[in-house]
């Protein structure tokens, strides 16, 4: 067995041909300024806030662009800022590149009256279940989704459980019978 090297305590070392989150954000802003509402950089991660109706286009571009190759959608998750906030909902898309190993977060902000987002199932098929989960728990409607049904909760469930105004124990005891 080889002599163990001295452990390096850095959490995120540099990998070759990997772009830093800020480089990706800058490239997107330079080439398509209309797609970027805001760039937030914190804790070594970049978040790009994208206009709602553009999200599928942005994802398609990031997936096919040879500089980025975000061919892997890690995760989609929603967030409810609270009933009194405006915009109220956030949808986060966590992108990853299997060739370049960099990551990026896209964010879409939604008002409570109009919780519609274009689906990204056409870009990555894995978005199917993630979007169903976000619909189930937050009530965000993904336009164009092929099969937008509840996934974790029963079909006849009332309300969306991860919204901040949904009580922890539900409105009433739930029974399957």
């Amino acid at each position, binding site marked *: 067995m080889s002599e*163990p090297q001295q452990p390096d305590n850095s959490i995120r070392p540099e990998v070759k041909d990997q772009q830093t989150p800020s480089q990706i954000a800058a490239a997107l802003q330079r080439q398509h300024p209309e797609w970027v509402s805001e760039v937030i950089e*914190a804790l070594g991660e970049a978040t790009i806030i994208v206009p709602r109706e553009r999200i599928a286009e942005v994802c398609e571009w990031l997936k096919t662009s040879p500089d980025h190759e975000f061919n892997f959608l890690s*995760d989609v998750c929603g967030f409810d800022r609270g009933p009194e906030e405006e915009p109220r909902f956030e949808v986060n898309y966590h992108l990853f590149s299997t060739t370049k190993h960099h990551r990026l977060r896209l964010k879409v902000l939604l008002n409570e009256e109009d919780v519609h987002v274009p689906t990204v199932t056409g870009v990555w098929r894995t978005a199917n279940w993630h979007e169903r989960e976000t619909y189930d728990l937050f009530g965000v409607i993904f336009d164009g989704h092929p099969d937008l049904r509840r996934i974790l909760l*029963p079909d006849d469930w009332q309300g969306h459980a991860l919204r901040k105004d949904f009580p922890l124990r539900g409105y009433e005891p739930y029974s399957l019978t």
Partner: protein
Amino acid sequence: MSAVANIPPQFEIVDRPLDTQMTISMGPQHPSTHGVLRLELVLDGEMVVKATPDIGYLHTGMEKLFEYRKYQQGIVITDRMDYLNPLGNNLAYVMAVEKLLQIEIPERAQTIRVMMCELQRIASHLVWLGTHALDIGAMTVFFYTFREREKIMNLIEAASGGRLTPSYFRVGGLMMDLPAGFERRVQQFQNDFPKAVDEFHTLVTGNRIFQKRTQGVGYISAEDAIDWGLSGPILRGSGVELDVRRANPYTSYETYDFEIPVEHDGDVWARYLVRMREMRESHKIVQQAVSRLKPGPVKADAPKVVLPDREAMKTHMDALIHHFLLVAEGVDVPPGEVYHPIEASKGELGVYIKSTGGPKPARVHFRGPSFVNLSALPHMSRGCMVADIVAIIGSLDIVLGEIDR
């Protein structure tokens, strides 16, 4: 119209002699669905036309619970998600919180984390091997794998006090240091384990029935696997060399010498070979970690985050105050959001935490690898036989606790 008025239309019995398709429900109490998973199978004779997973039977609202608990209390919830790999869940969660707090943990704690996580990965793969072979019809393997797993469970129990729910990793380090003589016990396991893997190979790999049941079954190509977001051994079984431990290293994994096993066939057999080789790689990493263990602190020097030493608490005023505040009020985490991915035994386990300040998170989301891997089941199972479904589910290595959360 049915004779009984209140039968829903989809359950009406209609006699159509030329229509050979049949819809049957597999589960939720089927033993080979590894928990409470229901599959809606559309069959044409013995052939599967369509398989639709129906999940949610174990949904316990864990992500909602996190929002009502302090950060430290969240650790015990993570144990109950992927209950075969609880230390991996602990690691992903505490590392995400550590990233929000921007604290560094000491070297010894990192080494112990690596060692325990790799032992847990072996344990998780052993359960997979036992149940996968059991599903296919080889019952003996189960007893051999659980014999080895028991040794790892005893090690985890010795370190943390819990077998299935260790909660051993805490924000800023570990719950406590390893007990005396732990290295010797790990070494004992390390000495025996390669022989055990040889034993599994003798039992399973050369078995002609096992090969016939797995080769060419549940094929998925590399492009499709990436498109479906598959990760872990399934993605590597399709020929994609990707491991989060290498791609985005954490806990000093970049300093360990190990290989990423890759197979190119993309079927159940390839996933079997990948996991079998992964056990040997994990064994290698544990060996390196044991040789690196040097005395030192296992908790970060961050009094506002980490509980003080028991002895210090009894003699020092400030330690007592910190202890009281930590338990009563919790950790004040600055606002921000992080996504921290790790390589769990089943694939990429990502934790998204959104903090708006204060002791409780605003949102915790788990990207469970089993959840995503299961979503590709309809794609993998088109045109296979009913019995192959059982082999494919076994090769996906799903844990319903993580899928339903």
